[in-house]
């Protein structure tokens, strides 16, 4: 049979097409929906759809007392519940002009830094998992995180949503003998973090997948208000614990790790180094722990004077801010949650254009977003 030769027959017909990544997808770290416009395997455009986890927390806050809202903050960034609790109670205390005891401040620092490590462990583990290091680093990281979760379990009886911070202090004092346990965990984690460095950091496959992938330049990061390890990986030395110290962070010696290129590998390295620095802070805080009563000695219903306050804290994922407006009643008139992942995710389409679908997974994993605080 004779072949029909037409004009188009000498090239393969191709066109751009859309792929829906999510909302249910193992690599999107939650219910995130990316509408990817692809040319073959290359990403041409990306539209981010969020809101699948929207629980209208800001509206709920207007109908709860200040104390009643604390458990809701656990559900924002559920990998770092303690840090969310902390950010919220600090904002309310600023509104009330409430000073907490020195011991409560030290306990808060220890707990917040432990939770930062637990959160970074999940970030590093899932990032390695996204890059194809199937199961091993993730399971190792979860094994280490378990040690911290067990400490929190002993401290307040919960394993994920702790609800431990209180307006004016913390829920309970540290249990007897927990400082020795924390010291052991620090010692254990130190050696483990070194293990991960040798397992992952200069692994050839890991380097090829993450080095020079998803470069976030400094000015783009600032323009999108990216904060936390993602910003520091781009070379900006900005950490609220140093720049605007809250609690007793100014009493401790620690360094702020920064990256050079702002690629996925740098973001991973910054998180690894931050875990070591957090261990340093916890060690110093345990050594300098003052005596006293850290529990809250104020009532449960607060009626702050009418006014507005904005307080921000350094969360594992960036700057978490609470803008609280009070009208003198026991409930906030308006409560805005400035979530770090919200801005960190907004920058994603700029990073993935021109790269392959597999790199989208890598970059999203390196940005380490949590949908709970994006959708609120």
């Amino acid at each position: 049979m004779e072949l029909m030769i037409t004009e188009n027959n000498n090239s393969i017909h191709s066109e751009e097409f859309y792929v829906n990544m999510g909302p249910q997808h193992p690599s999107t770290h939650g219910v995130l929906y990316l509408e990817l416009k692809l040319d073959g395997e290359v990403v041409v455009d990306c539209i981010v759809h969020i809101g699948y986890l929207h629980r209208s927390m800001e509206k709920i806050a207007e109908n709860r007392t200040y104390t009643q809202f604390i458990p809701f903050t656990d559900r924002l960034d559920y990998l770092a519940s303690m840090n969310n609790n902390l950010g919220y109670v600090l904002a309310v205390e600023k509104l009330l002009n409430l000073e907490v005891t020195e011991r409560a401040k030290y306990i808060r620092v220890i707990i917040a830094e432990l939770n930062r490590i637990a959160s970074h462990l999940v970030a590093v583990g899932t990032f390695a998992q996204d890059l194809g290091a199937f199961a091993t680093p993730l399971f190792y990281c979860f094994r280490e995180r378990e040690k911290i979760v067990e400490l929190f379990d002993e401290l307040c009886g919960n394993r994920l949503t702790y609800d431990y911070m209180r307006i004016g202090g913390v829920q309970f004092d540290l249990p007897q003998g927990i400082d020795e346990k924390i010291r052991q965990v620090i010692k254990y984690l130190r050696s483990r973090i070194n293990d991960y460095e040798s397992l992952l950091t200069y692994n050839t496959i890991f380097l090829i997948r993450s080095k020079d992938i998803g470069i976030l330049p400094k000015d783009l990061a600032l323009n999108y208000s990216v904060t936390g390890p993602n910003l520091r990986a781009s070379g900006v030395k900005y950490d609220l614990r140093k720049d605007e110290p809250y609690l007793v962070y100014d009493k401790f010696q620690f360094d702020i790790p920064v990256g050079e290129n702002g690629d996925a590998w740098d973001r991973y390295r910054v998180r690894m180094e931050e875990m070591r620095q957090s261990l340093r802070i916890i060690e110093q805080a345990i050594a300098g722990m003052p005596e006293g009563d850290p529990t809250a000695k104020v009532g449960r219903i607060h009626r702050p004077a009418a006014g507005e306050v904005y307080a921000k804290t350094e969360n594992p994922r960036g700057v978490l801010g609470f803008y609280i407006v009070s009208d003198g009643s026991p409930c906030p008139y308006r409560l805005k949650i400035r979530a770090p992942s919200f801005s960190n995710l907004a920058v994603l389409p700029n990073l993935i254009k021109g790269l392959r679908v597999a790199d989208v997974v890598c970059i999203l994993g390196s940005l380490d977003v949590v949908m709970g605080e994006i959708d609120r």
Partner: protein
Amino acid sequence: MQENEMLQLLKGRFGQITQEEATKAAVVPKALLLDVADFLKNQELAFDDLHCITAIDRVERIELVYIFYSIEKRHTLTIKVYLAPDDLKIESLAGLWRSADWFEREIYDLFGVYFLNHPDLRRILNPYDWDAHPLRKDFSDPDFIKKPQY
């Protein structure tokens, strides 16, 4: 630079800026917002980070709150813009700071404030085909339980 000094600088430059007594924030007239924003970003104050935008429904007006931060100079400034409830339109800042894009979409979604010249003004947290603005004080829904009285 302290917030008071910045406010003096802004007052000297633009005149019509006042200070809100309770919060010490600078209140910028709606028409001046783009000029003020451009001044904040590109002149000596060097605000390279639009940290947060939010809104407050005061019933008699809607207040927009812009929080700026300068990584270079390590200072922060809060400005406010008052909007009358019958004219909820304002210029978008997404052309100056890309972070404004999603913040403004969120305010449009939750408060129904329209941002002019916004690159992509769609709802962000709630379904695209919904027509209510839930954070407005007059929001009502059969399933919505009002604030208990304490």
